């Protein structure tokens, strides 16, 4: 699991917010933000949409972030803002995402992971619960799915998810609560002890 929060930086290195500000004068500086955030963002996107679409979505996300960087006001972390842009781009592939979940639920083979080397133990665990979860994910509303996967797969906090999705904190909690209830119902009884 990727570490949840921003990585600590050596002394003297600018934080993300300062780099965004600097990039208004010096566009080159923005490249550093790609270096810092693209590995984690790319992993998140390919978990949502599979490796085949991930590169394009990451490219669109950073292109949009770069163009809109003057609108970033620094009140929230850059990461949350960036994940918010990514969420919008991912949402445009909502049907493709749902289609893959449904195929996984139906066949027991996850098209997103097709061709990706996987540990046997991971495959076994995924086969046990994956199709159930996939079916439930396919049935979630776009924004509920965004919220719960930002929590589970992007490791964002509730507050960061609220920033990313531009929703009040209470609404985010309600969405995640609703999504969790649906996912819980989809899991086989014996694993439903937490």
């Amino acid at each position, binding site marked *: 699991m990727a570490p949840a929060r921003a990585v600590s930086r050596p002394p003297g290195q600018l934080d993300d917010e300062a780099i965004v500000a600097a990039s208004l004068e010096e566009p080159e500086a923005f490249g550093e933000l790609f270096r810092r955030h*693209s590995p984690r963002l790319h*992993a998140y996107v390919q978990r949502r949409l599979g490796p085949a679409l991930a590169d394009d979505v990451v490219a669109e996300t950073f292109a949009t972030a770069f163009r809109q960087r003057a609108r970033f006001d620094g009140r929230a972390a850059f990461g949350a803002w960036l994940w918010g842009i990514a969420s919008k781009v991912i949402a445009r592939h909502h049907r493709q995402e749902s289609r893959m979940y449904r195929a996984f639920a139906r066949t027991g083979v996850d098209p997103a992971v097709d061709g*990706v080397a996987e540990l046997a133990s991971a495959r076994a665990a995924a086969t046990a619960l994956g199709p159930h979860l996939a079916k439930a994910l396919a049935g979630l509303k776009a924004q509920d799915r965004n919220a719960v996967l930002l929590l589970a797969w992007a490791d964002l906090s509730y507050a960061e998810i609220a920033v990313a999705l531009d929703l009040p904190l209470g609404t985010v909690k309600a969405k995640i609560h609703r999504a969790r209830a649906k996912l819980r119902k989809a899991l086989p009884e014996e694993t439903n002890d937490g």
Partner: protein
Amino acid sequence: MDEIDALRGMRTALTREEAPDRLAQRIDWRSARPAAEAPRRRGRLKMPLVSLATAAAVSAAAVAVVSLASDERPPGGPSSPTVLTGNALLVAATNAEKAPTGRYWHTKRVAGKVYAVGKTAADHYKVDTSREYETWVDRDGKSHSFMTDRPARPVTAEDRRRWQAAGSPDEILAPDPDGVMVSLFVKSLGPRSPMPSPPDAYSFHGLTVRQLAELPTDAKALEKTLLGLKGNWHAYSKDFSQRPVREPIRSLRGAERVRALSDVAGDLLANQPVPPGVRAAAFKMLAGLPGVTVKGQGTDPLGRTGTVVSLPLETTTPLGIYSAPKQLGTYRRQWIINPANGTLLAVQDLVATPPKGSRRLPPGDDGKPRRLTVDYQPDRFHRPGEVSSYEVYTVTEWTDTQPR
């Protein structure tokens, strides 16, 4: 197991994070269309995923020119060809070639060294002291240089705490290899000062500015020319009676030749007024030298992220950026490069084996014998892997802006 944990166990094969360099080579976000302008793509149920991706790639490429022509040019310009081997040096070469040219070659470099302050390994702190050099060279070889002493600073938070425990002195005394105590100043030492330009015409190992401008842009041809450069390329000689020999790099063998060639290539990349094509050739040449390896991500002494290139010099005894014969440890040299724009960010020497013992030095001005001892080595308390000295290149550009 709750449902969030169950989700976390799903698609774990897709959670592996790729190195940003690899992503940067593949993902051309600089010319990607913004989401808002993207046409809606109708999903087609039967279409295999790979075709969707290809279609997206084609349409992204088709709009690249349009988006570059917009009012604001994204950084980096058009995409570089994808280099599947992941060789950061070759990517750097490709991007170095795209750098703009101008009337003046302008550089800023920071040369630094880490000094240990204190008597024992258990009770010492390290201080980083550095100078910044700024230089303009025009196409006739006329140069202007300035120098700024940068304030010394404790290296880590723990070093800072110990410095504060010592009373936060503005002036710190530390032993220097010359056998004296030197003063390191924590306060800024005032504005930059001009450095006198050399009276002779600009020269790089005997090459004039004009000859530098005409160096080959083919890696093999460049290597051949550089092999002919004459100098005293040995790190140090045990035999002081022997006068330094000037010989072409060609007469060196093995690691010594690689070191000489990489030194010259680094100097070309960081400091010398050569065209972008020559810089690209220097990166390619380095990629072809035996033992040069790309090590993944790292940060330079200013904290900038880059790709680490390790030079095959671990067994070389004394190797220093400016004080080779005065070291008693062994060092490993690293380059930090930024493949995305084809620049050399920094060269740093890490301690491989900490200094020990002593060595005879040539007699001083008073004719008395001298010895180099470990007590006066700035890195006497370094652990393997810690930075002993470095040069950081913050500006390396051709510009039309007048020297100022």
